[in-house]
């Protein structure tokens, strides 16, 4: 009996002591809440916002946004692009090192890019190299038709990294800010076998911080300053703690007790925090809009007057002011403000009322279009199904009520479904009207315009004129003339907006509670992810 008691006591002590790890003073570190666990610490698997935030702390890429939202060389020193716009030669900064002190060379970029294109790795984000830009041979490699060695990347020496594209891509350096393009050291990768990215020990850092606590589906992620980072002097925090808190109210309680310094505020909590002086609305670029399925399954939606009537019957201002509140703005065009800039530095979408004629709320004009459409179709009423993510019920009820009130004979059936179901229906084209949203991957209007190409996943809009205008913006000639290209880009938006091919509803800002002693927290122009250079926290 005594022996058993002795072992039991020993077991208890072991359990208790295993919980006593070294103490870190949490008040001196930045404590940030995110809503879900990152997918992986392997940056090529990055595909969602939470993984994106984690990667920003320990990964770096050739180009990055600084805290003034300017695109600046990071691991690259400079680059040159060939006459045809297809070959980019990046000059890597001298003396770069990984977090274990080994040198970071151009070969690491070659290996990193190859892993990203490897079908066996299976990154969900490969559309960045097959759709957003066309990295040479990436599509064929992913289809298993060519070996990885045929990918259009090479390193003639330790400081030169060459990328070849199949089509010019004017925003290529912007695209490279995605951490999927982080370098990877081949020797280290192979030393970890198939465990690369599965824990903090199984990755190397080349970013501002070293990942020093991570496990798959971690609820807490911890970073310490990376002394080998090329710009370590500008890193002002000794450590960062990211806490995964799925419940927003729990996160708010943590924020109010001081355990959290930064948290994103969404949904119902916006109302609770509306008057909080620490509530910050950072520019965002996500667009919420209605896909009107024009694939022929509902001939009524092929009628321009019907589409115009729908677009002009929605009081977007009422929805954003009275339903959604902080951080939401009505949209009557596709491109949100502050997302892309003209060659002279002015905002590409500075005139947010450019397409008001086709999209602003005007029930009288809408009724005229509606009557015209009904008479062209020879019907007196019609019913559409509006599909949406279940959490968007309030907005959709308001949209349906406005449409039914302003367009006599129109009946809207609401169908709230889980996100996965909506995505599946969208991919199969099985919808009539769908409230969708889009978070751009890079700061170029084509990131939005590509949604409406005839061969886009949703297949909602079919207009050869639109497709042709879009294709013209991607030519070699246009890649060398940003001014002319921007003019063409405007034309692309003119075509779809004048045709009421889509119905923009609203854009969202990024609403964060940021403690007053924290400064330098920014989001990039795409609105997704964060900029961490210049992030600091004063004691107290």
């Amino acid at each position, binding site marked *: 009996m005594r022996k058993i008691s002795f072992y039991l006591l020993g077991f208890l002590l072991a359990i208790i002591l295993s919980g006593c*790890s070294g103490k870190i003073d949490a008040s001196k570190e930045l404590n940030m809440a995110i809503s879900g666990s990152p997918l992986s610490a392997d940056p090529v698997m990055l595909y969602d916002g939470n993984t994106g935030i984690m990667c920003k702390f320990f990964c770096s890429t050739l180009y990055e946004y600084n805290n003034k939202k300017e695109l600046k060389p990071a691991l690259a020193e400079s680059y040159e692009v060939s006459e045809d716009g297809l070959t980019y030669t990046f000059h890597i900064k001298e003396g770069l090192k990984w977090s274990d002190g080994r040198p970071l060379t151009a070969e690491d970029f070659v290996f990193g890019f190859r892993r990203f294109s490897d079908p066996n790795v299976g990154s969900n984000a490969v559309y960045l190299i097959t759709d957003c830009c066309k990295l040479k041979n990436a599509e064929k490699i992913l289809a298993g038709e060519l070996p990885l060695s045929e990918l259009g990347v090479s390193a003639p020496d330790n400081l030169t990294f060459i990328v070849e594209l199949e089509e010019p891509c004017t925003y290529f350096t912007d695209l490279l800010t995605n951490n999927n393009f982080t370098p990877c050291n081949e020797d280290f990768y192979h030393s970890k076998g198939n465990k690369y990215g599965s824990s903090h020990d199984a990755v190397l850092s080349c970013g501002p911080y070293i990942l020093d606590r991570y496990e*798959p589906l971690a*609820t807490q992620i911890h970073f310490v300053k990376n002394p080998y980072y090329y710009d370590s002097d500008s890193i002002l925090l000794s450590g960062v703690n990211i806490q995964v808190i799925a419940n927003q109210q729990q996160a708010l309680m943590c924020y109010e007790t001081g355990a959290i310094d930064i948290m994103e505020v969404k949904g119902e909590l916006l109302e609770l925090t509306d008057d909080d002086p620490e509530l910050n609305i950072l520019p965002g670029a996500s667009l919420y809009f209605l896909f009107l399925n024009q694939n022929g399954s509902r001939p009524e939606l092929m009628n321009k007057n019907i589409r115009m009537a729908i677009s002009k019957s929605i009081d977007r201002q009422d929805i954003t002011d009275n339903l959604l509140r902080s951080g939401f703005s009505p949209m009557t065009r596709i491109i949100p403000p502050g997302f892309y800039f003209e060659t002279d530095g002015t905002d590409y979408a500075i005139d947010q009322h450019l397409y008001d004629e086709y999209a602003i709320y005007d029930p009288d004009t809408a009724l005229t279009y509606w009557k015209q459409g009904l008479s062209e179709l020879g019907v007196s009423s019609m019913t559409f199904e509006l599909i949406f993510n279940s959490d968007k019920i309030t907005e959709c009820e308001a949209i349906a009520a406005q449409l039914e009130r302003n367009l006599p004979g129109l009946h809207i059936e609401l169908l709230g479904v889980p996100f996965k179901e909506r995505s599946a229906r969208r991919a199969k084209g099985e919808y009539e009207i769908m409230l969708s949203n889009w978070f751009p991957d890079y700061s170029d209007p084509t990131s939005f315009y590509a949604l409406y190409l005839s061969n886009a*996943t949703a297949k909602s809009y079919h207009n050869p004129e639109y497709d042709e205008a879009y294709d013209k913006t991607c030519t070699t000639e246009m890649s060398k003339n940003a001014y002319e290209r921007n003019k063409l880009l405007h034309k692309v938006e003119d075509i779809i907006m004048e045709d009421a091919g889509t119905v923009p509803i609203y854009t969202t800002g990024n609403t964060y509670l940021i403690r007053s002693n924290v400064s330098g927290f920014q989001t990039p122009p795409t609105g997704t992810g964060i900029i961490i250079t210049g992030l600091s926290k004063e004691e107290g």
Partner: protein
Amino acid sequence: MARYIGKRILIAIVTILVILFILFLLLQLMPGSPFNDEKLSAEQIAVLKEKYGLDKPVVVQFLTYVKNMLKGDLGVSYALSPDTPITDLIANRFPVTLKIGFFGMLLGTLTGMLLGFLTAFFKNKVLNVFYNILTLLGVAVPSYLFAMCFSYFLGYRGKLFPLLYDFRSPISSSIMAVVAMSLGVMAVIARFSKAEASDVMKSDYVLFAKCQGLSNTTTILRYVLKNSMMPVITVMASLLVGLLTGSLVIEQMFSIPGVGGLLTNAIAVNDYSVVIALSFVYSVLYIVVMLILDIMYCVIDPRVRLGGKPE
């Protein structure tokens, strides 16, 4: 005896296979797949399904899965943490769940036994009211509700404990979760302890011991406690499994990196392989514990009948 044990093991295996097959079917019937996303093209989804064998018929998938499982390979995660072996995911998180569950169990058992035995031995009115209130609350109120109350009053208002699990202070940040989980255990153990102790107190051998001139304390310590403990210990086993598997909401609430969060996240993103693997682990846990209990019963108490006819 051997025949009885063999029969029980066979039933357990068939039960697990049936559970697995039903789970497979249910997950197939659910809308969507782990790869539903706005930005994935149909071709990319097809490549991913092929990579993980999800393009094959359900029966083939099921048989492959069972075959791999028998080799100890639970597969990899498709969506939550792509390509991470599920055994690694569970191995990383199970110790935390085990630790919190164990302490919840320990606290609940000790306080429950104390409350149950004290109420049985000292037939005190105030103590009885106290017992009734505590056990009624413990049985009727789900542990996550206690967790919410602790979170609000002790964590948020009182600032006595951290609101979330923190690896930098694991003990203080686990206290609220442990106490919330222990209350249900405490109630069940208290009721069992009181009932058993009251029965034993009325038994002939206790009466005989008293007649022999043994003091109340000696009788209780030497005979009553010992004989009341056995049923309590048997109920503890199933309570422990319940704690390990039933702490889903509490883990989520306190951001505890345990297996509960793993399951809820996997269900949310249709990560079939993780859901099935965890359901399998949970089923095995339950079935094995129940099997051990059944076997223990007939070892401890020969009066337990095996197979319906007297031996």
